[in-house]
């Protein structure tokens, strides 16, 4: 089922794989750092899921199963790079330094963004499938014009790969040779639709038809994702143009907390992928090769619990916004209809103190 051309540096059992093309440049400490990232991101995700169940969030889009893809890609980024995510890139947001509580503002329905995208050089989530890929290519055109050695990375799913915007972004990236990495997380599903509906052949091939390299990497292998993405980013920064990285992974959970995957996929499939868990894999490596002790893992778990606890507190403390805030930043300059609305709301006695 997994393609021969899949780049892999670590088997599901955590054993090293010899790759002719890539080798891991990471020290044991660095790998342990990745483990820590993944464990914390998973913990953030489980906390968010339970917050949603308790009615504290309107929705949550779990990232479980895709931690290696996101931490591998996220850690390959330079601070000066810029990223354009979807709604599921919590691991990337983590790597960019976005505070976990900010990731949840959208899901608590108190904001349509959640953080300062320029501060973290990480755009706020794009919900309309594919839009962000063109925005990212445009940003990369700006980087070129500035003569900067920066790369841009944009994220999308197997489902979104069918959208015209994504495909046009391939045309443009190729035509203008922009410094961009398209990071496609093929998690096998687009809500209820299997990726086989979107394509009959591996998705990374699509890049070839547009004249730039596409590569498939084991998305549950953080070492491989890191190396592949890092090389693509470096290549982009020095004028080598775009690369499509397809991280072959799996959405372990539901599409979102509103979804019920039992309606469309069988347990056996999920079971198979449990054996490919991205965190267990790297843990096995750390134990066997680097002799990392159980206590070290326990410490990470404890740290993750602290993050989760703080996250819970922060979320519970998030008040609904002042209704009058809807009029702020609707436009950059003053606008009569906005002023009219604000005046009306104030006259109705809403806003200001009402939250």
């Amino acid at each position, binding site marked *: 089922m997994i393609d021969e051309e899949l780049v892999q540096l670590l088997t599901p059992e955590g054993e090293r794989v010899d790759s002719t093309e890539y080798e891991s440049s990471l020290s044991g400490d660095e790998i342990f750092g990745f483990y820590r990232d993944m464990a914390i991101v998973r913990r953030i995700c489980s906390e968010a899921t339970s917050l949603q169940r308790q009615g504290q969030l*309107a*929705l949550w889009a779990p990232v479980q199963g895709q931690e290696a893809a996101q931490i591998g890609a996220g850690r390959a980024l330079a601070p000066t790079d810029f990223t354009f995510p979807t*709604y599921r890139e919590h691991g990337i947001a983590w790597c960019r330094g976005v505070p976990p509580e900010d990731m949840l503002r*959208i*899901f*608590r*329905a*108190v*904001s*349509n963004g959640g953080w300062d995208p320029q501060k973290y050089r990480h755009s706020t989530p794009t*919900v*309309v*499938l594919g839009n962000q890929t063109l925005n990212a290519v445009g940003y990369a055109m700006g980087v070129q014009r500035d003569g900067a050695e920066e790369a841009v990375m944009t994220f999308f799913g197997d*489902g*979104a790969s*069918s*959208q*015209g*915007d994504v495909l046009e972004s391939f045309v443009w990236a190729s035509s203008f040779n922009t410094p961009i990495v398209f990071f496609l997380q093929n998690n096998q599903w*687009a*809500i*209820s*639709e299997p990726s086989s*509906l*979107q394509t009959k052949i591996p998705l990374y091939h699509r890049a070839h038809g547009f004249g730039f390299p596409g590569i498939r990497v084991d998305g549950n292998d953080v070492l491989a994702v890191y190396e592949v993405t890092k090389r693509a980013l470096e290549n982009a920064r020095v004028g080598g143009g775009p690369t499509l990285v397809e991280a072959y992974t799996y959405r372990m959970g539901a599409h979102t907390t*509103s979804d*019920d995957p039992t*309606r*469309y996929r069988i347990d056996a499939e999920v079971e198979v992928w449990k054996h490919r868990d991205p965190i267990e894999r790297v843990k096995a490596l750390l134990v066997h090769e680097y002799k990392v002790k159980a206590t070290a893992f326990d410490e990470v778990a404890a740290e993750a619990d602290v993050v989760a606890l703080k996250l819970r507190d922060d979320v519970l403390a998030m008040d*609904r*916004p*002042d*209704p009058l*805030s*809807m*009029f702020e930043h*609707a436009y950059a300059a003053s*606008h009569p*209809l*906005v002023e*009219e*609305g604000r005046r009306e*709301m104030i006259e*109705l006695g*809403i*806003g200001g103190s009402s939250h």
Partner: protein
Amino acid sequence: MTTKTMTMAKALNEGLRQSMEKNKKVLLMGEDIGKLGGVFRITDGLQKDFGEDRVIDAPLAESAIVGTAVGLAIRGYRTVCEMQFDGFVYPAFDQIVSQVAKLHKRTDGVYTMGLVIRLPFQGGIGAIEHHSESPEAYFAQTAGLRVVSCSTPNDAYWMIQQSIEHDDPIIFCEPKSRYWEKGEVDLDDPPCGLFDAVVRREGRDVTLIAYGAMVKTALRAAEAAAGEGVSLEVIDARSLAPLDLDTMVTSLEKTGRLVVVQEAPHMASIGSEIVAELTQRCFYSLRAPGLRVSGYHVPYPPSRIEEEYRPSVDRVLDAVDRVMGFES
């Protein structure tokens, strides 16, 4: 008269089923509409019963959903396209405006664009951005299209069938916040024509016109006003393009006062059109200018404050007060 109580979601499901049973050329197409039955379960069970050839899970591309439905229409099929949410219809806008709306005319009537685009619209479900939009006026202003909206299970059941049978392309707006409310469905006869407005509550003093989710808000306002001795007539527009102006004129000639309630912002909206048309037709009967109670002219806010964005009973009553007080 055989009636059955069901939710609007179920009524739509049953209506689709009826149409598919009656006409083999009726297809459904959309994202996740097969095994999942759509994110709102409107197509629940239909793929199982009618097969994958008639209930088509679409790759994720709205322009393609509509663009291929056009080709299917040319081949003689009638496709009901589901847009997963209002905010995701825009990638299909070009196909809708350039092909769906114009091909019948372009071919001097040879191509019939018998297709329906189902649009779960308006807000009120606590969703994240892009899931609560009111894009109806984009389509209403487009010559070649028709736009309707249901507000009750009975209308949902009948209007979807009438839309599928109709030869013009129809944008079918479903107030998603009302999907789970129950009502009686008359299984024998449709309540009226697809393009008719309906008086939902009779009244004397002010004509309230609403559609979709706002019909209920208008009715609640009427209830509240009645307590204070003000009698509101509530009209459910049902058809947004064309508008059933005759029904509205009759009411306005009686009441002399007009308030339109809509979730969309008021700029160049259905409400603007109703006010402009009725002012022209009822100039001498009007005792006050027609007012619009609308969503504010800002991007749809985070849903924790959406109820302050959507017209509330209070805001409607406020407008009623203003039209009532106009002459004093």
